[in-house]
């Protein structure tokens, strides 16, 4: 069964690539706009041999990783604080509901003015976008704490820190990991977007350069790279999530079935 679906998936991928080769060759769309798969593949190969490509990839990943780390740290700390300190949750709810839907791209002009094309302007956008994902999930997670467990811990005389460590954190962790997974994807989108629009060094800027010099196959090759990067981030985040929650029943249940 597993083998069959893998084979079908591979077949689907092959058909997709073949269509990409056939459609422009048959003249359905202009070759100049939509180069055939083989042409994109050779452009991709050229990119892979270019040192500048690798340093652009490194820049993108650096912005992504630092931004994500800041957002996760801040989101978890703020989320736990807000839910543990009495009345803070009620008092901050309206502010969070208001700030969260603000699209992070609204900050692009501000980032350009403040930091120009430095890494900092990428970080500003990445952190703003992914912070909310982590914060909201952390808040959900803390809300989910079993009141009986909480009261048991209290009556055994556990202090505030011990309760956070042994009751609150294990309950919230699945939610936090979900938030991290969502934030990882959002952070990558924002990192590449910031490079594309602002011109900070990275893959996005390389796409913008390729586009303005009419190197269409290179644009496609770089988009493929961005897609693969997104895929790796998604799969990687899911793996990390599963590892970190190996003890949790939602994951253990999956293995047993």
């Amino acid at each position, binding site marked *: 069964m597993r083998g*069959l*679906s893998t084979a*079908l*998936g*591979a*077949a*689907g*991928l092959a*058909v*997709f690539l073949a269509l990409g080769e056939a459609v422009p060759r048959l003249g359905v*769309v202009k070759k100049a*706009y*939509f180069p055939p798969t083989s042409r994109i593949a050779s452009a991709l190969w050229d990119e892979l041999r270019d040192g500048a490509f690798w340093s652009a990839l490194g820049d993108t990943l650096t912005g992504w990783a630092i931004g994500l780390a800041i957002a996760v740290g801040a989101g978890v700390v703020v989320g736990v604080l807000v839910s543990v300190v009495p*009345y803070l949750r*009620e*008092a*901050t*709810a*309206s*502010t969070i509901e*208001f*700030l*969260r*839907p*603000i*699209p*992070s*791209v*609204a*900050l*692009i*002009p*501000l980032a*350009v*003015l*403040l930091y120009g094309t430095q890494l900092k302007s990428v970080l500003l956008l990445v952190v703003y976008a992914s912070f909310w994902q982590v914060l909201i999930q952390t808040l959900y997670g803390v809300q989910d704490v079993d009141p009986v467990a909480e009261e048991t811990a209290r009556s055994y005389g556990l202090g505030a820190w011990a309760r956070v460590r042994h009751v609150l954190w294990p309950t919230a962790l699945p939610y936090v990991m979900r938030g991290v997974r969502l934030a990882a994807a959002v952070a*990558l*989108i924002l990192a*590449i*977007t910031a490079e*594309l*629009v602002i011109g900070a060094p990275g893959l*996005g800027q390389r*796409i*913008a350069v390729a*586009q303005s010099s009419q190197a*269409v196959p290179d*644009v*496609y090759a*770089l*988009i493929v790279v*961005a*897609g*693969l*990067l*997104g*895929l790796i*981030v*998604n799969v990687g985040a899911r793996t990390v999530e599963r590892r970190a929650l190996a003890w949790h029943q939602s994951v253990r249940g999956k293995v047993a079935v």
Partner: protein
Amino acid sequence: MRRLLLRVFYVVALPIVLVAVWWAASDGSTNPFWPPLRTILKTFPDVWTGERLRADVLPSLWRLAAGYALAAVAGIAIGTVVGSYRRVRAVCEPVLEFLRAIPPPVLVPVIMLFAGIGDTMRIVVIASGCVWPVLLNTVEGVRAVDPVMLETARSYGITGMARLRDLVLRSASPQIFAGLRQALSIGIILMVISEMFAAGDGIGFTIVQFQRSFAIPDMWTGILVLGLLGFLLSAAFRLVERRVLAWYHGLRASTRRSP
């Protein structure tokens, strides 16, 4: 009564404090990038006149609506087909996973090749970014339809459109709405990005224009407008969701209470 007052207090207290802090901290600020809040609010009515709302905000909203609707229809339709047949799903899954993983804004340069820099380009950009969360969530939702219900429907002879409307789409609708919600925030981002790329009209274009001409307070009002827009759209979405999924929230509340 006291309860109500307390709730109102909780809702407004922190925003008032924050705005007051912003006002006080920025008052007398000489840093050109951080103009006093007083100046920003003073320029607000001058910048966002009725004329500008009609010329810039409405076209943006119309493109967002068109692209979003396109993505919703395509995503739900394709998602239902892919989700209903196991073989089709197995064939499509790797390709869909890859296409979804592409950060939507990088498609802007490619779509510009095909559709130029007009409204069509922006609508296609918005639709091509919004379609993935809707599609994949629909697939998941349709896949998770309760098999007992499917068999019950079959033995009652419910087929075709009735089966699709009353059983498959209905039981997938919580998932579909989760996808639509993600798609909305992606759509707003793409609306702004697509306008920043190619000159013309729209909110994103206006804000970048202000920034390039160093009209900083005007730029800040633009940021405020975008923030307000994001907030209002998500509030409207929540209202619709609560109405459409009222049965689902009720069901969940009752199952949570019963054990």
